[in-house]
């Protein structure tokens, strides 16, 4: 096993920069943001909107923030919690998150009220890259991946790229981001466990159809190993590019601690990369489950 910490080349935006110019300016900030909304969108997910600085609001699709969660009663989450950018508005200086309450940290997030504050740190990591040549792309998400992929909708529209979003959930009412994709002109194909449409077989069938119609110049995916595998197979079979956003437990979020490493297959060799710094978005074919 070799180790490879060099930054992936997909998107140079947040890559290590040259020695600092004078005067020095931060491109990542930890700041106390004002909470504009923190409301349930369904039984599982909550939508958090905060007013922030220009730097934070310049976050791009696939990037993430590290949130310093308040302590819920009886618990003391110590580390920050990574959350994907769900939406950013540069002019209104606002960022949005979509989160599921799972443990101490997200339970803490849940306690914040409108008008309250939240310490956010970002924008972090390497986001998605949209090639201007791509006419049609497919976004396939499940779980937190639905949040992570959402900002692609707006970015693709701006790029003149058409999106088909295959959004997966256990039940139809647990689907999120459908409206965002539709609002930006994407075709949305909801698939769910309860309707038995979310299995890898059915998703592969849908994808083969899109590929046949010439509507899949690239894959974007997040949140499901099984669906990632389907796409990896099709990407190889049809020679298509793809990007996947990965998750891993994080401490620092900015490449200092090496707790968030994963293995990647780079040209047959297993290399070790930091999800927070070299990712979270990686080349689809390099990702290992």
């Amino acid at each position, binding site marked *: *096993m*070799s*180790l490879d*910490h060099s930054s992936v080349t997909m998107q140079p935006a*947040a890559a*290590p*920069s040259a*020695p*600092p110019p004078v005067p*020095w300016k*931060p*491109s*990542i*900030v*930890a700041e106390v943001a004002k909470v504009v909304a923190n409301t349930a969108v369904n039984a599982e997910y909550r939508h958090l909107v905060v007013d922030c600085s220009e730097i934070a609001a310049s976050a791009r699709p696939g990037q993430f923030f590290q949130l*310093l969660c308040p302590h819920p009663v009886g618990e*003391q*989450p*110590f*580390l*920050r919690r990574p959350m994907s950018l769900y939406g950013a508005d540069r002019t209104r200086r606002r960022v949005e998150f979509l989160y599921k309450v799972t443990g101490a940290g997200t339970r803490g997030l849940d306690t914040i009220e409108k008008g309250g504050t939240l310490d956010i*740190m970002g924008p972090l990591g390497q986001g998605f890259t949209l090639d201007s040549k791509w006419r049609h792309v497919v976004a396939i998400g499940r779980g937190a991946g639905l949040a992570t992929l959402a900002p692609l909708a707006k970015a693709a529209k701006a790029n003149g790229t058409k999106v088909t979003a295959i959004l997966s959930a256990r039940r139809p009412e647990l689907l999120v981001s459908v409206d965002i994709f539709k609002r930006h002109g994407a075709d949305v194909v909801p698939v769910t466990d309860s309707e038995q449409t979310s299995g890898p077989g059915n998703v592969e069938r849908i994808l083969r159809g899109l590929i046949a119609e010439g509507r899949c110049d690239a894959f974007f995916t997040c949140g499901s190993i099984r669906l990632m595998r389907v796409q990896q197979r099709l990407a190889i079979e049809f020679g298509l590019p793809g990007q996947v956003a990965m998750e*891993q*437990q994080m*401490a*620092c*979020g*900015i*490449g*200092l*601690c*090496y*707790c968030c*490493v994963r293995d990647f297959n780079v040209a047959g060799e297993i290399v*070790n990369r930091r999800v927070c*710094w070299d990712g979270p978005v990686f080349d689809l074919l390099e990702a290992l489950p």
Partner: protein
Amino acid sequence: MIGPFSIDLSVEVGGIKLRNPVMPASGTFAEGLEKVIDFNRLGALVTKTVTRELRAGNPLPRVVERPGSLINAIGIPSKGVPHFIEKIIPQYAAYDPPLVVSISAPTAEGFASLAAELTLPGVSVIEANISCPNIEEDGKAFAMRAESAEKVTRQLRSATKLPLWVKLTPNTGEIAEVARAVEGAGADAVVVANTFLSMAIDLKTFKPCLGNIMGGLSGPAIKPIVVRQVFQCAKSVKIPIIGCGGISSAEDAIEYMLAGASAVQVGTATFLQPAAMVSIIDGIEMFCLQREISSVTELVHGVVIEEADDQDLAWLSPPT
């Protein structure tokens, strides 16, 4: 009256002058932080420990949190010395603060040869991490005993002309003796201290929370123990002490300095507040300003030890 610019924050630490007493702790600092803080504000830059062997680091999970603390078992992933010389050292060439290179090895000879090889332009200090609890089985390391610490320091001393800092483990029962042994063997400063060997078990699976079973505890929870160790070392040695353990505010840094530290390293706090070091520097300056302390060196070992008096009084309201 002292003006803001008349406060001298500089300290002399083990053969080198630092513009201020605040620097990162090894393993909690890397190039990425440059996007958050101006490296030129720091007292020094400190690299992650490097080893000669190529290492993959420990299995996942590598960290687990506890109230007020973090247990890490990152291990020391290392791409070896040539990569370190070619890729890591040059990353810091453009910055003013001195570069402190942290090294580790499984043997005293290994330490010495690594120190020799890394005595290079661009490297200002060798910090010998003789204490990392993950390296030696069950947490035993050179820094556990005075004899082994002395031996490795002596070899290190003859291998490099650079200022030599030796980083101690807090897991020993005899840290003041270890510090004295290290001083006797020629170290220019001691760093007190590394992490506390710790363990956490997952009640769902009954498995250890860390892939490596045990790991090192850091963060605010450990501060009172390490402040005591700094105080004990300060009574035991004349070389400067660099305090490290749970520092997340200027007050914490000042408490360490009062206990006997000439400078401090900040680790875990940077994970929570990436600009913590800069806030701490600003806070120390503000404290000196308010207390009319013109040089930060006045704080070093400034703790006032006096005979106990009837402190009961302090708890009653002021007399009418």
